[in-house]
């Protein structure tokens, strides 16, 4: 009962209309190899629910794969200050954006991971994030209970009954079909070891109904089980494993490789228009597979990104303006 599958098989597990989320944080540890594959497969009507967005969201949104994006932030950090593709699609009303705060998005995943329908918070009180007029899924008539991924309300408000602590906002759990993770190591039974910050990966893996792990390397379970305290995700939360070197490229991975800022900057600069996006995708996505993409990037560039194993990050790249 091996959990191993190919990248193509993994992409097939994310059908049109799928409610999807990812590992990582902004431009780090995103399962880009699968994201490229979904664009190639011309997947449509995806519903992204992300603790925060990043290149993975911009790539999918630019390619027209996404109908609904629920999150709090999109951009490429230093390499592109906002999500130009999302911004364009919002102006054209080709996508529904539901805004929550960062902590609230995390709580939505935490609630799902803990098997409860909502979580309480006092974050972001008084902001327009909580403005009922700006409930975009509600405005679109999608909060009628027909879509199992969409709760009946964006928020509910109550007063704390226990300590008179004031207003409390209840945030609905995120009902995720598939989480795709990008990590350093996975054992053949599914144990995941993450090095560096774990971001919200543990919550994400537990929240989703199906969890697919892209790992830089598949290692012996027994090796990981010798030091159980270092492991982030237990076997039974992982359904499928893809061994995929440089699977996070062009995002970075602690201890393995840095972000390819040039790649992201080029994307950001070229994809302000749909024509620009299509042109970029014709160059970097459609005609290639994962191996082909890495070939095109080339050994020299990949070697420069390789992390120094003592420091866990590259000392060979130029990061300055």
């Amino acid at each position, binding site marked *: 009962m091996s959990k191993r599958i190919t990248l193509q098989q993994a992409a097939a597990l994310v059908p049109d209309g799928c409610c999807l989320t990812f590992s990582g944080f902004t431009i780090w540890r995103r399962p880009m190899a699968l994201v490229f594959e979904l664009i190639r497969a011309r997947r449509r009507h995806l519903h992204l629910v992300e603790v925060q967005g990043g290149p993975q969201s911009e790539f999918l949104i630019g390619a027209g794969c996404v109908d609904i994006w629920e999150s*709090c932030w999109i951009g490429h*950090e*230093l390499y592109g200050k906002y999500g130009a593709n999302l911004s364009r699609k919002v102006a054209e009303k080709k996508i529904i*954006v539901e805004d*929550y*705060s960062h*902590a609230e998005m995390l709580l939505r995943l935490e609630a799902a991971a803990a098997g409860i329908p909502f979580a309480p918070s006092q*974050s972001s009180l*008084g902001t327009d994030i909580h403005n009922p007029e700006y409930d975009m899924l509600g405005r679109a008539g999608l909060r009628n209970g027909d879509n199992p991924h969409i709760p009946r309300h964006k928020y509910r408000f109550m007063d704390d009954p226990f300590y008179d602590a004031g207003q409390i906002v209840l945030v609905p759990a995120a009902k995720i079909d598939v989480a795709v993770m990008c990590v350093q190591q996975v054992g053949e039974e599914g144990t995941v070891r993450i090095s560096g*910050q774990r971001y919200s990966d543990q919550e994400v893996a537990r929240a989703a109904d199906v969890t697919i792990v892209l790992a830089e390397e598949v290692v012996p379970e027994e090796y990981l089980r010798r030091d159980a305290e270092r492991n982030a995700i237990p076997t039974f939360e992982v359904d499928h494993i893809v061994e995929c070197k440089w699977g996070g490229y062009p995002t970075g991975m602690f201890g393995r490789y840095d972000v390819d800022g040039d790649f992201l900057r080029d994307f950001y600069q070229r994809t302000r228009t749909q024509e620009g996006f299509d042109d970029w995708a014709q160059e970097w996505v459609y005609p290639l597979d994962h191996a082909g993409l890495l070939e095109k990037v080339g050994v020299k560039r990949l070697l420069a990104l390789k992390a120094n194993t003592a420091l866990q990050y590259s000392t060979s790249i130029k990061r300055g303006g």
Partner: protein
Amino acid sequence: MAADTRQSGELKYGLADLLTCAAAREVQDNEIVFAGTGLPMVAIMLAQKTHAPNLKLIFEAGTLDGRPTELPTSVGDARCEVGASRSSGLHDAFSIAQRGYVDLGFLGGAEVDEYGNVNTTAIGDYLEPQLRLTGSGGNPDINSFAARTVFIMVHEKRRFTRQVSYITSPGWRVKKWPEGTPVARRELYGAAYRGGPSAVISTAGVFRFDDESGRMYLDTCHPGYTPEQIADMCQFDLDITRVGGETPLPTAEELHLIHRVLDPDAIFIPHPQ
């Protein structure tokens, strides 16, 4: 931010240097500081190397009390973890914030109003936006719970606005939902209230907020600006009666630290020409 070189006696410095040093001075020693990407990160590390050696740095992505030796490009960067007390994830960072551990947060914004409400979400009507921005990120979360927050902003009249297009991050007068009743922040946050925006550092000056009214006033002007000029650069009536002179200039030590030690590659702070 483009380099624009200014002169202070023998020293050459840029606008970004001035802002970085002003931001660093907001930090007190032993404080727990929530750091965002960019200039604030340089400012905090500058404070750590000068007057606040015992400050504790929290990165939202999950590094607690870190001591990076190389400037991280983002809070999720592999460089964040060096020397940290604990590396974990967002759950820790936001729990710690909501629990009330955070003394100070540095944030940014595209628009601000006189009560310190900040917009980073969309310009124009939210339902028909002129420009969709990055979104909130952790801006409102940190600002909800830190005892003090400092906003660093480009100063343009359209950004210092009578009413922000969208309140992404809560100032001193906010709205109580679901009705949208105007209400004082202190009242709405109840037991979670610990403070709020304490300063705005713009490209023109440093601004603070009146304890009672929650309205913005001008504290210091950056070199080259008069209080009246700055008041003219705001859509709302800026209180300039409490102005305390000129924003202190960067010192030689600070410039050395910024350009030789903290950001030698000019990732966030351009070198003065």
